[in-house]
């Protein structure tokens, strides 16, 4: 136990103020995100993540926004297990044929008004997988998308920026 406490004090707070973690041009993203979440979602934006066919690369970066360095919870962002509690769906693609029905059901189970953010180049247009018998392409082909986040995979900072764009819409 002493070791745990010692390690906690040694580590301190590693969470970075957002501007230093990302490029200068988005200075203030953190404050704006917090403000938008506070104003529009009563301080709590709840996200349901859906992997609709991704290679797992985007998932790793979505995990990263939960780590202590990006610490998305400080902005009121929280990931939920059920679409019924969600304000936003964070969807990675390409949408595989075998996931199409599950994605539609998840979308329908999410209460309106809802935001959909498609993550990654594959979520935009299918990426390198393209469109074929098994891959239906971008998320927008299946459900309405509010914001696309580009990148393969997008960095954690880019994902936070994309979420901000959606909540400011």
């Amino acid at each position: 136990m002493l070791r745990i406490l010692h390690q906690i004090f040694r580590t301190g707070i590693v969470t970075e103020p957002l501007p230093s973690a990302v490029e200068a041009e988005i200075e203030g993203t953190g404050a704006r995100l917090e403000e938008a979440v506070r104003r529009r979602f009563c301080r709590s934006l709840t996200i349901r993540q859906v992997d609709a066919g991704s290679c797992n690369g985007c998932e790793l970066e979505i995990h990263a926004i939960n780590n202590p360095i990006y610490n998305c919870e400080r902005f009121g962002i929280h990931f939920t297990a059920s679409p019924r509690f969600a304000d936003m769906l964070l969807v990675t693609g390409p949408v595989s044929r075998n996931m199409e029905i599950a994605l539609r059901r998840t979308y329908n189970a999410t209460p309106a008004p809802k935001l959909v953010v498609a993550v990654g180049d594959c979520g935009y247009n299918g990426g390198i997988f393209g469109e074929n018998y098994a891959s239906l392409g971008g998320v927008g082909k299946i459900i309405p998308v509010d914001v696309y986040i580009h990148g393969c995979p997008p960095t954690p900072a880019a994902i936070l920026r994309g979420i901000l764009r959606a909540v400011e819409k």
Partner: protein
Amino acid sequence: MTTLNNTITSAFGGDAKQDTGQYPTPPIPPFDKGGAGGVTAYQVPREWFVNVAKVMKTADARLVAEWATDESPFGRGFGIYACYAKDSEYLIVKTYTPLEDPAFPSLTKKFVSAYRFERQMKSLMGVVPVGHPDLRPWIKHEDWPEDAYPLRKTFDASKPMPRVKGEYPFIKAEGEGVYEIPVGPVHAGIIEPGHFRFQAVGEDIINLEERLGYVHKGIEKRFETLSWKEGARLAGRVSGDSTVAHSLAYCRAVEATSPFIPLHEGDRGRLPERAEWLRALMLERERIANHLGDLGGICNDVAFAFLLYQFSILKEKLLRTNHKIFGHRFMMDRIIPGGVTVDISKDAKEEILAEMDWLTNEFERLVTIYDENPSLEDRVRDAGILTPEKAKELGVVGFVARASGQNIDCRIQNPFPPYNIIVPKITVLQSGDVHARAWVRIEEIRESIRIVRAILYGLPDGDITVKFNPPSPDKAGFAVVEGWRGEIVYWIHSGALGEINRCMVRDPSSVNWIALEQSIHGNIVPDFPLCNKSFNQSYSGNDL
């Protein structure tokens, strides 16, 4: 090592023909230590395909992969392939079936790992494994048209398929108090999709059946439309967490089909050493980062969030260094046929060495906390046991195998430079529980840190790429690479115009998923996430 070779020639004599035509060079030139790294291929008559399996089983070989090809452009019907391994030796056995009679004898009764390989071959290529006990489709879901066999050359992959009515019959359990829990495909956390069907009594799990295929994106078919160079990008996205290992295995298979053109007198006509060493550097960094993430995940699944956050800080720092030095947090697209796209400077070398010192220090502190925590130990010990006997029978690979008494690591058994010089120390544990799978990862992080240091101290000077020649028609290439999850296998075949005719991908997950089913009996439902995390297999790599 030529045990399997000797076995097959003594059992079948001249009827097993060695196939030298398709394999122009051994994948890598023989090393000083016994010429490991090659693959030999034999062709046998169709009815003997299963006899060979019998002989291989007696010789204590492991079934690595089984796959089918459509070789109708060469007028040869469907090719049926099985790859076996024992120690440092890999052996491919192939046979042909005519287009009008696409059937072959099933190997499932000899090797359990053939069970899903053959269901997949039937589902996607339409070749029938005669004698297979369970021909329910695999990867192919119930709403596909039955005659849709995407890997056949006659299949038009560019069109979407219609949905038909159908049902997937799950295995049932009946009796008083038995109930079913269906989970997925959309899971509670930020993870990939798949379906798990539990039969339970109270909290005890009687049976678990996995149903995968949800992220099938037609990757193997997609390869056939790409150039050899684009193929490396696709391979890097088969399983995003293993991007280095997959693109490396792909590139090594491609390079095996086509000897490099020596650029000048005295050129070895092979990959520059510096490129090989940089590839290994990236491979080990990928291993460390993923193992750190998994250790955090395992701790989180027993509600010890403290270590999740601590380990994820270490992982994040590593990814940032990757971004700074290699230009990408996961080092995607840094490995290409003929070398690597990024070199490291002297400063970068110093930076990585300093990072490894820092990492060792921080990591060991956390390992002590992990090791000293009784409530953690109480959950991870004796949970999700995969016995060494089962592990061997199922033919599992990677840390899953090494946590269950199997001494397999293709960095040892099939090494390429620098692993012939910097030999990894392999940790093998016997208990096969969640703790063993976690502890093998801890030891592998320690060992990978040592390897990273050794690579940087010994990094040879020179070029980082060599001119790559696309393969000539009808050549095959084979490669295995030990990714962080285990042995990744690529087998590629060039078509009549020198294009990609077939690219077979075998992620470790294709053999390891079934081990999760087998280790869960008698555990309680709330321990499933923990057991699953300790395996952490890829859905995308399995579903392709």
